[in-house]
């Protein structure tokens, strides 16, 4: 195999080629290990992100009525709306909910503002809709010392009971003075709510009189009616704590130092400027800033989603196996190289799905399985060109090199049109189509890249021979119909 006149150069070249091939295969193997770790470990930082149709859950689309709002203010209002809804969804206790604003594309005459809410794992759509449909509530409540004391007593009883009998259930029903003890934070209603709020604004504490300078605060101004109520409450409850609740969650509980008659209140609570601004924003729109209406709902049961995922993966594994088998049987040794390139393609794609991350849906999985069949195309193009040259009597390595040069224009033009299609799809598409277009587009680029890097390097590493040699190796480098 070595050239007798120049024994050194081909040898060192061969060594470099083999080394490069080894590095590439090791890198792909390492990546595959990483992908696998991320997929199976429950606490991985980059797990696969499953869409609702695979993980189960609810997908709600609300349409916001912005017809009475100045177009310039719409984006800000929508972001406020998103925050309000997100807060409510978080109260719902769903893991990783998604709340996003989606504006209909330029295709329709009138842009429609939508709010998309995804609740993984929530298959009771009614409960979710009810929760979101609730108007957000800003409440001012007074600290209830009596209730706090009762709760403390109950807690003591419980800990006693636990140590005595180990049963909490019985103690949970203990009543004092014939009334069930609330387990809520010990505050009682004052009747003062967000309804009486006029505005809320971000402020910074002045640097005077010993106050911490520049502490971000939120000041709220009540309406005339609210100011009266507020004055009355503060007058009667000096030195008590006034809890400020948003959607039932205690935000802060400042102490009432003196009666406040000016109709304004300051909410402090160690906010960062960003937090304070967000709070002021949310308070200003304690009620939804724009009316919303439920447009579409989609629910998939969790067990069903798992079933779809399992079948999709099964189809992927079998599809991959069959394509590998076909390539190996038809193209023999180069087919093996194409197999390595295809496995690299799958590894890189899965890694990108985890990294970007791409939300996997049933459609995305189907598109990926489809791409397994199409990804070998660049390899097939090269091998066919290589075969032509090889049949002419050119050595296999040179034939491979020529094959790449000749097939390039077809690979380039074919892939560019596919990429353009993907871009258009992404541009026009709804979120579902966008996901498909993204997978499709990345797939096109990666299949081209693996063919150009992995296939090329490995193919040029294969031992060099000529068809006329008639050896087993010469046959292995041929393909299909030829001997």
């Amino acid at each position: 195999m070595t050239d007798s006149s120049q024994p050194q150069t081909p040898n060192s070249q061969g060594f470099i080629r083999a080394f490069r091939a080894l590095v590439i295969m090791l890198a792909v193997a390492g990546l595959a290990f990483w992908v696998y770790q991320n997929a199976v470990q429950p606490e991985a930082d980059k797990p696969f992100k499953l869409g609702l149709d695979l993980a189960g859950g609810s997908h709600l689309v609300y349409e916001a009525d912005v017809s009475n709002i100045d177009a310039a203010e719409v984006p800000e209002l929508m972001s406020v709306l998103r925050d309000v809804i997100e807060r409510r969804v978080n109260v719902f206790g769903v893991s990783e909910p998604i709340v996003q604003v989606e504006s209909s594309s330029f295709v329709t005459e009138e842009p429609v503002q939508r709010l998309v809410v995804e609740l993984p794992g929530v298959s009771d759509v009614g409960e979710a809709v009810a929760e979101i449909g609730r108007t957000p509530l800003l409440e001012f409540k007074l600290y209830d010392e009596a209730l706090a004391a009762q709760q403390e007593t109950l807690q003591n009883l419980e800990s006693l009971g636990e140590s005595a009998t180990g049963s909490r259930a019985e103690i949970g029903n203990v009543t004092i003075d014939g009334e069930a003890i609330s387990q809520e934070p010990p505050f009682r209603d004052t009747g003062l709510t967000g309804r009486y709020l006029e505005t809320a604004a971000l402020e910074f504490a002045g640097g005077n009189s010993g106050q911490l300078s520049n502490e971000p605060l939120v000041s709220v101004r009540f309406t005339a009616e609210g100011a009266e109520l507020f004055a009355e409450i503060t007058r009667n409850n000096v030195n008590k704590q006034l809890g400020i609740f948003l959607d039932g969650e205690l935000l802060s509980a400042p102490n009432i130092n003196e009666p406040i008659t000016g109709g304004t209140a300051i909410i402090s609570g160690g906010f960062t400027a960003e937090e304070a601004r967000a709070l002021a924003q949310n308070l200003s729109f304690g009620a939804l800033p724009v009316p919303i209406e439920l447009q579409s709902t989609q629910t998939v049961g969790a067990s069903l989603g798992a079933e779809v995922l399992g079948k999709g993966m099964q189809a992927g594994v079998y599809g991959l196996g069959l394509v590998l088998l076909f390539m190996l049987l038809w193209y023999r040794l180069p087919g093996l190289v194409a197999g390595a390139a295809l496995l690299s393609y799958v590894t890189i794609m899965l890694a990108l799905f985890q990294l970007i991350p791409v939300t996997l849906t049933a459609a995305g999985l189907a598109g990926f399985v489809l791409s397994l069949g199409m990804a070998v195309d660049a390899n097939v193009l090269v091998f066919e060109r290589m075969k032509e040259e090889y049949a002419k009597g050119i050595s296999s390595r040179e034939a491979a090199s020529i094959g790449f040069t000749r097939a390039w224009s077809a690979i380039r033009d074919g892939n560019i049109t596919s990429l353009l299609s993907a871009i258009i799809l992404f541009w026009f598409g709804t979120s579902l189509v966008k996901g498909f277009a993204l997978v499709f587009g990345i797939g096109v680029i990666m299949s081209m890249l693996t063919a150009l890097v992995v296939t090329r390097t490995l193919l040029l590493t294969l031992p060099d021979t000529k068809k006329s040699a008639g050896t087993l190796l010469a046959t292995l480098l041929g393909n299909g119909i030829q001997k």
Partner: protein
Amino acid sequence: MFLITYRKIFLAIAAVIMLGSALIIGSLGLNLGIDFTGGSLTEVSYEIAPNKTELENLINTQNLGGISVRASVDEAGRDAYLIRTRDLSESERVELESTVTSLGEAGEISRFTSIGPVIGQELRDKALYAILGVVLIIVIYVAFAFRGIGTPVSSWTYGAITIFVLIHDVLVPTALMSILGYVAGIEVDVLFVMALLAVLGYSVNDTIVVFDRVRENLMANRVEKRTKREEAGVMYEDVNYTLTKPYDKIVGEAVRETLARSINTSLTTFIALLALYFLGGAVTQTFALILMAGVLAGTYSSLCIASPLVVTYAQWRAKKETN
């Protein structure tokens, strides 16, 4: 190359396929799903499913207007019904749920989708624009990429023929969808549009590979003749190309040389789709079927329509010019 020699037969077959598909679509129509029309689709699964008429009658007491109930099997293999109604309000949905689960054994809503009419209309528009946009960009790119191909037909001809090929490739799977809708009540959803777009991408790739070989063979089989002339003190150089082989022979060779590649790529794609069809579950089964039809149509069109058509057109032009 027999594909070029007997091109009239292959083009006639293509014409029959296209006309037939258009007729099927025209007469049977498309069974548009709620993705496009708006409405609600409820899948209810049972351990022991109730009688279909009984279920229908019970749902009808709720006065939801026209409903359709279709027996199916859910992803876990349980007997299920797909109930299609108009766009339901929250209270109507709750009522429907309690109605359908009151029958049979262990009834459970396994899937519920409700789409407002506005979103449906918008999606329909978007789908149409997306398909048109993709076709347009492909044609422009083909015309651009093959510029300078010159003799005997311009690059725009290749672009225009690509459109024709793409129409063929969209018609065939759409006709299949039309039949599936008529026979089995399968509805057109967003997945179908994605399948069509994937077919477009696949087919144009296939066609470009053949055209690319035509381009290469044209370059290899031409002689360049440069003539210099002077006009008003300015030197001009005219470059003329003459083909050393007849155009149809050159195209024929290009088709022969790309045949193995076309068939092999179709096969690998088809194999992957077969796996998806048989193992991928009910959600993507129709998607796989439509794509298989599309891949077959795309392979046929790039081999038996694109190149024969370009030869037929070149000869028709040559004839017109000599007359």
